[in-house]
C-alpha cells in the first residue's frame, strides 16, 4: 500500500538525478560492455517477472476461438466487467474528489493543524485494505457489496491521489498565478486556467493508480462478498482447476491492469515535464477559509475517523471483547499468534532478500550501463507492478504443476513469488541508492588496487547499504502482510498473520482475528514510519 507513495517519490528522485550526469560519462558508459554474470543475473530477474505473464497469455491462447467466445461472453464475465468497471469509475471519482480537495485544503489554505492533517491524510496507506474491510464488516453487515467496496476502496486509496496532487500544488510556482492575475484573470479564472491544468497530470496519474490497485485487490473484496475478477479467479481456482478457462479470465484482468499501468506511466512522464525548474520558490499565499474552516475541520475529522479510526478502533474493540461477542465464538490463541508472527516475519525476511537480490544486478546494470536493452529490462521489471498477485500466483501454480513439481507448494516458490511481486519496489530503492555512488568512486577504488569483490565490500555496500536496507525493510513489511499469494502458494498448513486474519474473518470469528490484525497494523505502521523518516521527511519539512 505504502509502496505506491514510496515508489512515486523515489522514482522521481532517481529520474531527477540522471540528467545531471555529464554527457561524456553516458557516452562512455555505453561503449564499455557490462560483465556477463551481471547481464545473466539481470536477464534472470526480467525472465522471472515475465514468465507468469507470458505463461498466462500463452495458456489463454490455447483456448480455441469458439470456446473463447463462449467463455468470455457469459453472464458471469459480463457481471464481473460491470462490477469491476463501475467500481473503478466510482472509486476514481470519489478518490479524485476527496484526494484533490484534501490536498488543496492542506497545501493552500489556512486550515488549522495542516501539518497533522498532512500526516493523517497519508496514514491510510499504512493499513492493508483487507484490514479495513474486516473493520467495516465486523461493524455492520449492511456494509457489503458495492457500497462497502466503494467505501473501503475510497478510504484506502484516496492518498494515492492526495500525494501527487499535494506535491504538484507544492511545486507550482506562485509567480505563474500572479502573472495570470496581472493579466486580468479573477481568482476563479486563475484556478481553472492556470492551476487546474497543471494539476491534471498528477490527478490523472493518481486516479489511474487507484484503478490499478482496485483491479488487483483481492482480500478486501472477498471479505465484503463483492465479486470482481480477482475474487472470481480465486473462487474458480478453488472450485475446480481449469487452466485455459482461468487464464482467459486472468488475461482480461491483466489487460485492464496493464492499460492502467501504461496510462499511469504516460501521465506521470508528462507531469514531470510540466513541473518548472526547482529553484528557490516563494511560498504561495494561503487562502483564508474564514467561517468555513469549521465545517472543513469536521469533514477532516470524519475522514480520519473513517480511514484510520475505524480499522484501528475495531481492532482495539475486538481485542477487548470476549470471543462470544462475535458471530463465531472462536477464541484468540496466543501460541497461534506467536507462530503466525514468526511465519510472517520469516517470509518477510526471505521475500525482502529475494526482491533485493533480484533487483540489485538489474539496478546496477541499468544505472551503470544505460542503453536501450537495459532500459527494456528495467521496464519489464516494473511491469510486475501492474500484474495482480493473484495472476502471478495462479500462473506459478500452473508452471510448477506442469514442469517443476518439486517446487509446487514449497516455501521456495512462495518466496520467488514475493520476489517477483515486490521487485519494482526493491528496484526503485537500488536505483536511488546507486544514484548516490558516482561511477568515478568505483574507478578511484580500482586505481587504488581494489578488485571487484573488495569494491563491493568497501565502496558499494557501505554507500548503498542504507538505501537498500530501507528498501528491503519496506518489502519486508509488504510481504509480511501479503494475503493473496500467501493463500494460494503457501505450503499446506502455512499460517501467517494475513492468512489467520483471513480465515478468522471468513468464519466471522472477529475476536479471534483481532490480535493478528493488531500485530499486522503495528508492522504496517512501522513501514509508514520508515518511509516518513527516509523519503517522506523532506517532503513534510518543505510543507511549512
Amino acid at each position, binding site marked *: 500500500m505504502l509502496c505506491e507513495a514510496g515508489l512515486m517519490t523515489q522514482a522521481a528522485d532517481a529520474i531527477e538525478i540522471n540528467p545531471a550526469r555529464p554527457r561524456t560519462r553516458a557516452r562512455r558508459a555505453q561503449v564499455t560492455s557490462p560483465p556477463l554474470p551481471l547481464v545473466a543475473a539481470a536477464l534472470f530477474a526480467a525472465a522471472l517477472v515475465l514468465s507468469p505473464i507470458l505463461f498466462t497469455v500463452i495458456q489463454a491462447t490455447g483456448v480455441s476461438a469458439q470456446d473463447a467466445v463462449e467463455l468470455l461472453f457469459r453472464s458471469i464475465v459480463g457481471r464481473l466487467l460491470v462490477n469491476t468497471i463501475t467500481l473503478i469509475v466510482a472509486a476514481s471519482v470519489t478518490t479524485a474528489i476527496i484526494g484533490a480537495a484534501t490536498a488543496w485544503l492542506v497545501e493552500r489554505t489556512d486550515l488549522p493543524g495542516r501539518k497533522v492533517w498532512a500526516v493523517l491524510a497519508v496514514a491510510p496507506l499504512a493499513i492493508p485494505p483487507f484490514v479495513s474491510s474486516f473493520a467495516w464488516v465486523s461493524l455492520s453487515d449492511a456494509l457489503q457489496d458495492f457500497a462497502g467496496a466503494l467505501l473501503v476502496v475510497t478510504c484506502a486509496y484516496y492518498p494515492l491521489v492526495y500525494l501527487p496532487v499535494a506535491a504538484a500544488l507544492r511545486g507550482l510556482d506562485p509567480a505563474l498565478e500572479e502573472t495570470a492575475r496581472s493579466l486580468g484573470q479573477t481568482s476563479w479564472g486563475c484556478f481553472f486556467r492556470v492551476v487546474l491544468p497543471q494539476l491534471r497530470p498528477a490527478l490523472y496519474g493518481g486516479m489511474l493508480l487507484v484503478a490499478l490497485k482496485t483491479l488487483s485487490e483481492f482480500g478486501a473484496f472477498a471479505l465484503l462478498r463483492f465479486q470482481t475478477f480477482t475474487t472470481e479467479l480465486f473462487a474458480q481456482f478453488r472450485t475446480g482447476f481449469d487452466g485455459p478457462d482461468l487464464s482467459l479470465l486472468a488475461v482480461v484482468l491483466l489487460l485492464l491492469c496493464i492499460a492502467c499501468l501504461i496510462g499511469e506511466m504516460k501521465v506521470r512522464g508528462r507531469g514531470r515535464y510540466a513541473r518548472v525548474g526547482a529553484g528557490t520558490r516563494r511560498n504561495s499565499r494561503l487562502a483564508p477559509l474564514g467561517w468555513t474552516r469549521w465545517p472543513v475541520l469536521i469533514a477532516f475529522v470524519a475522514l480520519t475517523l473513517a480511514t484510520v479510526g475505524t480499522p484501528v478502533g475495531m481492532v482495539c474493540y475486538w481485542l477487548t471483547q470476549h470471543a462470544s461477542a462475535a458471530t463465531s465464538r472462536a477464541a484468540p490463541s496466543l501460541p497461534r499468534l506467536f507462530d503466525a508472527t514468526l511465519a510472517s516475519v520469516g517470509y518477510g525476511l526471505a521475500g525482502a532478500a529475494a526482491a533485493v537480490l533480484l533487483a540489485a544486478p538489474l539496478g546496477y546494470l541499468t544505472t551503470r550501463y544505460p542503453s536501450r536493452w537495459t532500459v527494456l529490462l528495467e521496464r519489464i521489471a516494473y511491469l510486475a507492478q501492474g500484474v495482480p498477485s493473484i495472476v502471478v500466483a495462479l500462473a506459478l501454480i500452473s508452471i510448477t504443476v506442469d514442469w517443476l513439481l518439486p517446487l509446487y507448494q514449497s516455501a521456495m516458490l512462495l518466496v520467488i513469488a514475493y520476489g517477483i511481486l515486490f521487485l519494482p519496489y526493491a528496484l526503485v530503492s537500488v536505483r536511488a541508492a546507486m544514484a548516490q555512488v558516482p561511477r568515478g568512486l568505483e574507478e578511484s577504488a580500482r*586505481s587504488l588496487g581494489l578488485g571487484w569483490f573488495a569494491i563491493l565490500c568497501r565502496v558499494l555496500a557501505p554507500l548503498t547499504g542504507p538505501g537498500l536496507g530501507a528498501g528491503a525493510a519496506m518489502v519486508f513489511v509488504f510481504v509480511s502482510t501479503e494475503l493473496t499469494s500467501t493463500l494460494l502458494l503457501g505450503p499446506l498448513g502455512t499460517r501467517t498473520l494475513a492468512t489467520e486474519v483471513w480465515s478468522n474473518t471468513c468464519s466471522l470469528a472477529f475476536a479471534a482475528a483481532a490480535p493478528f490484525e493488531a500485530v499486522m497494523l503495528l508492522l504496517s505502521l512501522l513501514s509508514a514510519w520508515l518511509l516518513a523518516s527516509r523519503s517522506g521527511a523532506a517532503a513534510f519539512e518543505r510543507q511549512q
Partner: protein
Amino acid sequence: MADLRITALTKTFGGTTILRGVDLFVPSGSLVTILGVSGSGKTTLLRLLSGFERADSGSIEIEGREVSGKSVHVRPERRRVGYVAQEGLLFPHLTVGENVVFGLPSRDRRDRARAEALIESVGLPASYMTRAPQELSGGEQQRVALARALAPAPKLVLLDEPFSALDAALRLETRQAVAAALAAAGATALLVTHDQSEALSMGIEVAVLRDGVLAQVAPPEELYRRPVDAPLAQFVGEAVLLPGTASGGFVACALGRLPLARAGAAGPVEVMVRPEQIRFGPSDRIGAVKAKVREITYFGHDASAQMSLEGDEMQVRVRVAGHMAPKPGTVAWLSVEDVVMAYPSHNALVPLPPESGTLMQRSISPQPSERVL
C-alpha cells in the same frame, strides 16, 4: 616511481576516432602536462592509461613492462596507476583519514601516523583526519584525493583536470600544493588540462593533444615561443600573425625586419609575434613602426591595445602594462623584441580588409597575463 612510454596508441568510440596514434615518453619522476581543448581525447588517454578502457592498438609501458598492448590488458587494480579525478571523488562514507589510507593493505590502514603523514604531505593539517570529506573545501578535497592516490606508492599518477572545478583563488593555491606534493613524492605524473597557463606553469614538459595526436611535446618555454605551427601558436597563447617574406635568418613584415627563431625559412611566410614581444614607445627607435591606438581593452594588471599600423592598413594587438595603458587615438612607435617564428605560408593568411579588424585572433585563455614566461 617509473617512466611511462606510450607508443602509437589509438582508440575509437562507436565510429569516432578519439586517439589516432599517440606517442609520448614521460621520464621517471617528472610531471608532464597534456593540454587540449575539450573533446580532444585527453580524458580518453588517461582512461586508457589507468586501464578503465582498452586501447584499440598501440602499447603502454610502465617501467618497461607492457600494461596495454596487442594481447595484453592489465586490469586497473593491478597497474598501480593512481588517478585523481576532476571532482576529487572522495568516498563520502569515510573520513578524510580513512579515505587517504583506502588503497593500503588492511594492516597499514590502522597506522595512524602514516595517515597523518600522508595528509601533511599535501599541506593539510593532521587534525583533518577525522573530518568528513563534505566538510572540506573543493581545493582541500582535491589535495586529499591526491594524498589518497599517492598513498599506495603508485608507479604513475594521473590527474584529470584536477583544478577545473575550483575557483580562481583556490586554484592557484591548490596547484602549488599539488605540485609540491608531487615533487616531494618524486612521482611520475601526467596532468591533463584545457587551461594553457596551468599546463605551462606546472609541467616540465607540455604535450598538446590536438585531433587525437600530440601536435607538439616540448618544455613550456619552447612550446610558447616556438610552437610548431600557427594554429598551435594561437592555441597556446595570444598571437599576432602577419604575412611576411623570409630570407637569410630574417623576415620582413609590417612590423619591420625581424630576426627569426629558426633560420632556414625563405620566401612567403606567416610571421608569429607574441603581443608582449611588441614594445610600445613614445619616440622613434631604430626599426620601429608608427601606429595609432584604435581601441583599448583594460584588464587591470595589463591592457590590450588594438593598433593600426601607419601606411599599412594592417592591425595588430599589443600588450601594454596596466599603468601605461594609452588613450585611443594616441600615436606610438612599435618595435619587436627577441626572435619571431615564421611558418611556410602555403596556408598563408590573406590580409583582411581593415574594417573587418585584425589578423590576430584572440586566444582561448581568459587570463592573458598569467601566461608569464
